[in-house]
């Protein structure tokens, strides 16, 4: 059951107040009136109207001022101007200041009812839109908490008990049974990781990492990323080769997320490579940027799919069925690079392989040396610096 709309009329002419009240009788609204701007604003605070009619020409506070105050107090309150023909231009001005509509004087009851209904409708839409926006924000904010608790908790409890069972049964289990337990654990581990990835993509405000930016050595990022992908590469018999052009300037960034970004790209290169092939990771300085490129000679990406690979939930179709993933890696990578003021792009020839190129703005020498006291430890590998 909807509550009746509340309508406030502010006009210095009692006759207008009375006739408006009379017109709207039977429309299912609750009415309030005020004879000047100051009293009107007091009513706005006490009566909480949905709709306010304001006469533009009143002694004391002008209608224009009233509208501005109402709009500042609560922009979702719909205000409508009542005006004589002579002040049509000021009605336009009022609408520019936040009024939704105007009723020229004199008006017929039908005209007034029509404007009222339109105003009430408008108020409903404004409130609905605000509620939806709020809901969306709350959903987004709570998503992490809900997902981690509701999805991760049962998985964590299951995994915990598998850990326990493995330990408790270690003396009696056959090798086959142990392998089966290990597979169970690794499947649950995959699920936990996937949930984590989704959380990262949808709830974490990646821009926040900017607060912790510091001079970061690119070779160190590359080394850490490769270390993390290495076991996977070895299993697939793929060699990761690096070529780092010295000297290479540092970048301003967050090492953890940069490593994550590169792990995604190098991991993909390994994932879509053929056994026995090479993945080349190279870095060099170019036009004030550090460019990192990752090339493989794997399956490649069909031309028509290239525009979509950095979007959410893209997964390479050319990949073998065993290559599981959430399809978010490159989307996250793109966001991380963009937060660093960088870019990522890809070129590919199906059947021959793909090259991903990431760019990051290089730090100038003077920028590098200012916070150098802290950063110098990490940068001992760089001798020359930027040229």
């Amino acid at each position: 059951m909807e509550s009746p709309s509340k309508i406030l009329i502010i006009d210095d002419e009692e006759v207008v107040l009375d006739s408006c009240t009379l017109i709207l009788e039977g429309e299912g609204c609750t009415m309030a009136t005020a004879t000047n701007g100051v009293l009107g604003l007091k009513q706005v605070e006490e009566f909480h109207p949905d709709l306010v009619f304001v006469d533009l020409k009143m002694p004391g506070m002008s209608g224009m001022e009233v509208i501005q105050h109402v709009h500042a107090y609560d922009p979702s309150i719909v205000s409508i101007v009542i005006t004589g023909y002579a002040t049509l231009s000021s009605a336009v001005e009022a609408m520019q200041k936040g009024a939704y509509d105007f009723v020229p004087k004199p008006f017929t009851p039908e005209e007034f009812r029509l404007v009222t209904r339109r105003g009430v409708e408008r108020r409903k839409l404004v409130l609905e839109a605000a509620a939806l926006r709020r809901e969306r924000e709350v959903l987004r904010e709570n998503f992490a908490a809900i997902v981690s608790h509701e999805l991760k908790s049962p998985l964590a409890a299951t995994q915990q008990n598998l850990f326990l069972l493995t330990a408790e049964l270690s003396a009696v289990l056959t090798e086959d049974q142990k392998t089966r337990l290990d597979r169970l654990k690794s499947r649950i581990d995959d699920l936990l990781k996937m949930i984590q990835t989704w959380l990262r993509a949808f709830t974490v405000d990646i821009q926040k990492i900017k607060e912790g930016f510091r001079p970061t050595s690119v070779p160190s990022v590359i080394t850490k990323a490769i270390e993390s992908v290495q076991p996977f590469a070895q299993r697939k018999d793929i060699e990761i080769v690096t070529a780092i052009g010295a000297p290479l300037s540092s970048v301003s960034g967050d090492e953890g997320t940069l490593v994550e970004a590169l792990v995604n790209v190098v991991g993909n290169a390994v994932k879509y490579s053929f056994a026995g092939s090479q993945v080349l990771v190279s870095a060099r300085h170019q036009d004030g940027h550090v460019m990192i490129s990752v090339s493989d000679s794997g399956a490649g990406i069909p031309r028509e799919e290239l525009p979509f690979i950095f979007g959410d939930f893209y997964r390479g179709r050319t990949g073998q069925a065993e290559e599981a993933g959430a399809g978010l890696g490159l989307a996250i990578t793109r966001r991380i690079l963009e937060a660093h003021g960088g870019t990522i792009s890809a070129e590919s020839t199906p059947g021959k392989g793909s090259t991903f190129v990431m760019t990051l703005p290089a730090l100038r020498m003077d920028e590098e040396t200012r916070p150098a006291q802290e950063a110098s430890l990490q940068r001992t590998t760089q001798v020359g610096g930027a040229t």
Partner: protein
Amino acid sequence: MNHRAKLLIIDDDPDFVDGIKSILESADYQVDVAYNPKDGFDTLKTRPYDLLLLDIMMGRGAEGVMLARKLRKDPQLREMPVLIITGIREQIAFLFPGQPVHPHLLPVDELVEKPVEPQFLLDRVSSLLQAAEKRKTASR
């Protein structure tokens, strides 16, 4: 340690509790459990414990955090080591960007993520107990 250390687990997930309780008992710890923060706090007030294993997401939200804050203010309980076991490392990490995954909820705490490898859990527990023991001897 010359006595069997007494541990309390506060966690609202009975299955998860089972999974870590047995691991701790197999290492000869004496383990009690409370399944909500209120019972947990009452239990801590009635009996001394050497270590608390605390879940974060309980009840209607991060009630574990509220309990941790309460413990920090309590003169009798603030010295007790607390091992936080949580599934929400990600969010905590992003509440404290740039810092290791550590909410600094208590002066003497440590955080591990659910699920936790048995040996890793036992290592953390024993190192926290040893550190607390050292502090006690030092202040004597």
